[in-house]
């Protein structure tokens, strides 16, 4: 199957109060694959991820130049409603931030946002998405307890279920396992591998082994630049640049 490019980033530059954070980024992210944005801390991975759903809009000191095409539309210069653009992308952040309401309502909230209000329908979909995030068995008897009462690993899966309920095409994940214990991390990783047949996943991580386990396509960043990007197999086995080789051997961190 030829790879369709879901996201196409062209000449992207980003400044925070005149400081050049992202330097001339040109990458294409394939559909129904896991693309891992890899690199040491502070290299701009998270910032790049947040430009994709325009969360950078919240911060006035950030200035973004360039183009990001999603489904052929430049979202940085789109006249479409920003909430519609964002709904197309689920976000998993470093720490889970469930909404301050019950487990059930966390998932139902997204459904209600898209105008669904029938209780029967909501019940079914909530169950469906909690299943999708492998959380149903653990919470089916306590759906109406506050989300804050879940463990942090369960909260992250709840955030995944909540994100899926909005029915996005793309899932953006910003080091989603960094606050989790090893078992919860594994569950999230397993989930990602299952989800990629239906979704396009973009995962930011600084954990090399996680990248090796999950990536179909790798974007390697260093100091705000994309040093190298390509299919995982080529990237890990035949790195093209000296910096990549040094990183893979563990001499840059």
């Amino acid at each position: 199957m030829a790879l369709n490019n879901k996201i196409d980033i062209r000449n992207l530059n980003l400044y925070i109060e005149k400081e050049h954070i992202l330097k001339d980024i040109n990458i294409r992210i394939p559909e129904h694959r896991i693309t891992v944005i890899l690199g040491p801390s502070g290299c701009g991975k998270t910032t790049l991820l947040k430009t994709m759903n325009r969360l950078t809009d919240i911060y006035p000191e950030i200035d973004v130049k360039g183009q990001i095409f999603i489904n052929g539309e430049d979202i940085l210069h789109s006249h479409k409603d920003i909430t519609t653009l964002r709904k197309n992308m689920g976000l998993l952040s470093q720490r889970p931030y469930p909404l301050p309401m019950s487990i059930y309502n966390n998932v139902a909230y997204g459904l209600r946002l898209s105008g669904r209000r029938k209780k029967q329908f909501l019940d079914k979909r909530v169950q469906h998405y909690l299943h999708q995030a492998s959380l149903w068995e653990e919470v089916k008897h306590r759906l109406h307890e506050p989300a804050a009462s879940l463990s942090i690993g369960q909260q992250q899966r709840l955030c995944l279920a909540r994100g899926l309920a909005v029915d996005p095409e793309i899932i953006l994940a910003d080091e989603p396992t960094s606050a989790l214990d090893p078992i919860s991390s594994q569950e999230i990783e397993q989930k990602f591998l299952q989800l990629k047949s239906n979704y396009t996943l973009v995962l930011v991580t600084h954990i090399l082994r996680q990248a090796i386990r999950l990536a179909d396509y790798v974007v390697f960043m260093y100091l705000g630049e994309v040093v190298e990007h390509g299919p995982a197999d080529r990237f890990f086995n035949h790195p093209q640049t000296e910096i990549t080789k040094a990183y893979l051997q563990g001499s840059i961190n």
Partner: protein
Amino acid sequence: MKNPAGKLRRLQREEAVIRIIMRLATYTVIGVLGIIIFTILRRGLPSLSWEMIFRTPQGGFYFGKEGGILNAIAGSLYLATGATLLAFVTGYPVALFMNSTLRRHKRFVNGFRFILDLLWGIPSIVYGAFGFSVMIFFRVQASLLAGILVVAVFVLPIMIRAMDEGMKNSPAGLMEASLSLGMTPTGFSFRILSRQCLPGIVTAVLLSFGRAIGDAASVLFTTGFTDYIPRSLAEPAATLPLSIFFQLTSPIPEVRERAYAAASVLTFIILVISILARLSSAKLNHNAIKN
């Protein structure tokens, strides 16, 4: 480090001394509160009667004859409720706006906070005098409405800052997560931020109510005083703090004792409100996301 054992001893001594000072300070605060409440109750309870609470002043009340302070109780409750409601309706959107849409303009919001803190610190008599001069300009007389307006302005900074204090500590990730779900900043403010900060909002409302009902200086010129329960916003209204003041300055001992009875009523109202605030914020907190 020549003598590590000596250093350890010194640290332990220091710890012990500081602990004694902190304990003393705490007991002093509790003690002062206890003495105030005790004095009010000891002198007020004997004069407190159902007649005090459920009757308006009759002829010669201020000379020790029959009647009660229902006019002041009702006036104070009307005034504080109206002012708190008005301050909430104006202050709540401001606090939300500061912490959602304006959140990114840190310098502006911090400047605004500073101004609100200044306003919080301005003595209420200044608000009263200001309100009075505006009333003179428009040639209106002291009334319940004027009092409500002035007290609302006076508690507004308290209302906004108390809500804001809870909201500004809400995690930034919560806003990012909410926007990612396709919410607008307004949707986030009213549905998510408000829910997350519900205890803070309730506290702010009750704190403002407590300030509004207990303040004498801002209503002195603006609300006036009357022996009757106001039947419209245009009528003047009596308030508990002023009622206490008028009775306390009487030369007749029984009337002075009644002032303490009125003070007991006021203290009781504020006590009930504070306890309600505590209970409700503990109860409402269970859904909030920990930072």
